[in-house]
């Protein structure tokens, strides 16, 4: 696995964390004050920061860091997560998402925005309690901690050591009550040659209590006299711990002979810190102290290095880990002494915690969509093969009760179950798309100065991944429309007797084998007079046209139709509702509007659950079997000779309830036969194309209606005009799926010839 793959995994994880973050923040926004929610939010940001550090994504790290600090204040109840705070946080989450995307795709981010948010976050962190940012979280109700005094102020200049071992220090008693030790640690070069690392020792030390550290670089010779293998630094550590000197010495147990170690009890007064002024020594400090308020840029690399070391399973499940650890330590440690025990217990507990963390992780795996597709393909083949096998057994076996028949029946059941399960693999809840929409709503609301609440329902409704991926774009546009055009300004709303805050409701549900997504706003509804006028101006309808309300509403799906008076940031991007309609139709879906003046509009989209399967009408044309998508068919009819009218040299029309519809011979237009078939011998499928035109497609016979699995023609062949895709029938043969729109436009005189001639070369 190379670095890029690891990075890819990190970004995938980021996506999950960002979703988690947003869910949590929205929960908080709804008044949820469960500490677990706050912790989940904190964890999400923390994990992103940790990973970003490992990959040296400095922008991301520094933003996440500030964000984390502010979240920490919420976690420790220093900051009340009210609406204003959450507003900033939600926007920060957006920026974090931007930064993540920028880091992945190499794009740019709005730096002014992120700087502004950093300021706001810092203000929040400092606003209510100036030291809040530096303080580590007040613990949750864990047994050990409950009896401890509250963390003391940081007046000695101590900063709790925060790096990835999250909550270790929360179990520590308040600093001022503890004996302080001065430790002078001078590694010899032997220490390094034996593979020990001073950083690791110091890190171990930091777990014992609150620590301040100073690197004495006085011994450092000038560069020309430096021996690269020698050790020149001395560390002066001031540590507050209740674990006793023995615990401190045990940290250096294996390095004892390779360093000069001096441990003295400093007494109650924090002399140590006075003697050791905190001068910024980024090389060293930052490695141990990611809680520093403003890490210098040099320090960031070190943080990155540190995090790389520290990022393991226990980090991502810090909560679980620390709880287990606390329990283990309480059990193992008599209050006054036995530091050594505590250390061993803690390492044991750490292992246990890591194991538990690993098993507590959500049992999911990440799989390439390609692999799943391959599986789906194979299962489809299995089903076809099984059907063929059944067929031949029935043909050859006269004894209906034979064990072969029973076995076959079982096989049939199994294959069906396998097929269902495999299809379910690709099914995913619509939640991620819905979550993205809440960001869109926030942004548009900010831009338009409207106050909007997004309510989502049924976000666990599952639908095929391919559909979800293609849903985001039309949905985004519709949400923009709903907020920008649909909802009134707060003043207008109040004047109309509504609450100032508009509501946009996004609902997903299953209905008769399809997914129905509804977008409702409680705005002003469609201004039909305006729409009508606009349509007349654009020559879409005649000035005196008599249209029903529904017909007028549907006018907004016409290309180039916008009811916005002015072109704003949000509208006027050249993407109209016509594009929405087209992309929904491309998904095999339909879209409807219903609008009530003064009460808002509801857009209803009905989509297939999967793009891999299509409901089709299986028909015969010139001895070939073709599939016509059911969504395109309005009705089928048996033409009578009296209903067929010739029109000019070659055109024929069929009269349906007193209107005339052009007849299209599918066999002729696909070049399957040279002359037009007699319509009376066949069946006419009345279809409606995207452009709205109706055509009667002539086919020879209808075989039936069934679901077919869509196969790509382009993969091994090429695009064939008039053919949308292929499928495989029960007998194992390939059948082509008709592209109704292309056939209809071809019948208008546009060519249905391949763009290039295959016969040209050769």
């Amino acid at each position, binding site marked *: 696995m190379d670095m890029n793959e690891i990075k890819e995994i990190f970004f995938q994880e980021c996506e999950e964390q960002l979703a988690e973050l947003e869910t949590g923040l929205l929960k908080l926004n709804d008044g949820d004050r469960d500490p677990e929610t706050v912790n989940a939010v904190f964890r999400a940001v923390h994990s992103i920061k940790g990973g970003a550090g490992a990959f040296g994504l400095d922008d991301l790290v520094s933003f996440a860091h500030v964000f984390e600090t502010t979240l920490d204040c919420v976690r420790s109840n220093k900051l009340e997560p009210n609406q204003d705070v959450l507003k900033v946080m939600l926007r920060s989450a957006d920026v974090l998402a931007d930064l993540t995307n920028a880091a992945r795709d190499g794009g740019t981010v709005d730096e002014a925005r992120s700087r502004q948010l950093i300021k706001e976050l810092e203000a929040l962190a400092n606003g209510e309690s100036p030291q809040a940012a530096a303080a580590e979280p007040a613990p949750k109700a864990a047994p050990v901690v409950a009896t401890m005094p509250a963390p003391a102020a940081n007046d000695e200049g101590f900063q709790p050591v925060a790096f990835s071992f999250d909550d270790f220090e929360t179990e520590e008693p308040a600093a001022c009550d503890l004996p302080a030790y001065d430790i002078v640690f001078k590694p010899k070069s032997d220490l390094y040659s034996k593979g020990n690392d001073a950083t690791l020792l110091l890190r171990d030390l930091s777990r014992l209590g609150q620590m301040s550290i100073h690197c004495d670089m006085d011994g450092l010779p000038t560069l020309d006299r430096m021996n690269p293998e020698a050790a020149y630094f001395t560390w002066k550590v001031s540590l507050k711990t209740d674990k006793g000197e023995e615990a401190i010495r045990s940290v250096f147990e294996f390095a004892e002979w390779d360093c000069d170690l001096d441990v003295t009890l400093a007494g109650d007064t924090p002399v140590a810190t006075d003697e050791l002024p905190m001068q910024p020594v980024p090389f060293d400090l930052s490695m141990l102290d990611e809680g520093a308020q403003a890490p210098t840029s040099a320090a960031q690399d070190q943080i990155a290095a540190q995090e790389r070391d520290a990022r393991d399973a226990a980090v991502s499940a810090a909560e679980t880990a620390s709880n287990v650890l606390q329990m283990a330590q309480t059990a193992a440690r008599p209050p006054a002494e036995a530091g050594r025990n505590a250390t061993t217990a803690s390492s044991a507990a750490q292992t246990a915690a890591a194991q538990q963390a690993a098993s507590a992780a959500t049992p999911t795996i990440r799989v390439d969509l390609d692999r799943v597709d391959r599986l789906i393909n194979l299962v489809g*083949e299995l089903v076809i093969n099984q059907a063929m096998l059944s067929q031949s057994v029935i043909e050859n076996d006269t004894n209906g009760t034979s064990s072969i028949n029973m076995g076959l029946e079982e096989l049939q059941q199994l294959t069906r179950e396998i097929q269902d399960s495999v299809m379910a693999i690709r099914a995913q809840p619509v939640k991620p798309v819905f979550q993205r929409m809440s960001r869109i709503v926030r942004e548009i609301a900010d831009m338009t100065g409207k106050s909007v609440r997004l309510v989502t329902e049924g976000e666990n409704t599952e639908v095929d991944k391919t559909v979800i991926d293609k849903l985001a774009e039309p949905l985004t546009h519709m949400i923009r429309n709903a907020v920008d055009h649909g909802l009134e300004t707060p003043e207008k709303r109040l004047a109309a007797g509504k609450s100032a805050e508009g509501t946009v409701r996004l609902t997903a549900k299953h209905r008769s084998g399809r997914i129905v997504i509804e977008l409702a706003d409680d705005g002003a509804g469609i201004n039909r007079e305006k729409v009508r006028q606009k349509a007349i101006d654009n020559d879409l309808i005649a000035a005196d046209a008599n249209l029903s309300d529904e017909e007028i509403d549907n006018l907004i799906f016409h290309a180039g139709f916008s009811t916005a008076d002015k072109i704003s940031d949000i509208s006027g991007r050249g993407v109209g509702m016509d594009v929405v309609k087209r992309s929904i139709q491309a998904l095999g879906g339909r879209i409807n509007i219903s609008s009530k003046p003064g009460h808002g509009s509801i857009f209803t989209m009905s989509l297939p659950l999967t793009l891999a399967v299509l409901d089709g009408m299986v028909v015969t044309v010139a001895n070939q079997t073709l599939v016509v998508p059911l969504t395109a068919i309005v009705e089928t009819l048996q033409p009578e000779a009296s209903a067929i009218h010739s029109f000019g040299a070659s055109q024929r029309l069929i009269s349906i309830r007193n209107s005339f519809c052009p007849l299209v011979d599918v066999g002729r237009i696909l070049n399957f036969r040279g002359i037009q078939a007699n319509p009376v011998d066949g069946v006419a499928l009345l279809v409606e194309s995207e452009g709205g035109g109706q055509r009667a497609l002539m086919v020879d016979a209808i075989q039936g209606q069934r679901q077919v699995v869509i196969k790509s*023609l382009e993969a091994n062949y090429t695009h064939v*005009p008039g053919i949308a895709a*292929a499928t495989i029938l029960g007998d194992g*043969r390939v059948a082509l799926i008709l592209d109704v729109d292309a056939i209809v436009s071809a019948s208008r005189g546009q060519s249905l010839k391949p763009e290039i001639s295959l016969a040209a070369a*050769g």
Partner: protein
Amino acid sequence: MSNAAKNLTTGARELIAFRVGNQEFCVNIMSVREIRGWAPATPMPHAPPFVLGVINLRGAVLPIVDLSARLGMTPAEPTVRHVIIVAQVKNQVVGLLVDAVSDILTVSDEEIQPTPDILSDFEKSFARGVLAIGGRMICLIELDAVFPREEREAA
């Protein structure tokens, strides 16, 4: 294994030889995925005459090219005795209808003679060389040209 090792050092290659009409051709074995019997193909609208249609290859749609027609000879009339060579051409998979597969040849680069100097489209588009093996003449063909280039770009 030892063959493969030898191939690397001597530049020898393995070829699959087959018969189309009364001529013998061969292609690099590395591009051949499998060899299967003829199955009725579904005709494609607007397809050039040498594309017989598509068949179902374990769930994938596989176009079948009548190699005889493609090489400018008499179009084949497929029977159950005909054979489809499933070959990988670039990132597409194509079925080639041939009369029969005759041989697997291991030849060195030196044994491949340049295409005789006859000016024809056929030579320019397909032939990459000829082999003389046991009094037979076998033409090495390049599968890239089985589907014309423009068409692959369009795909």
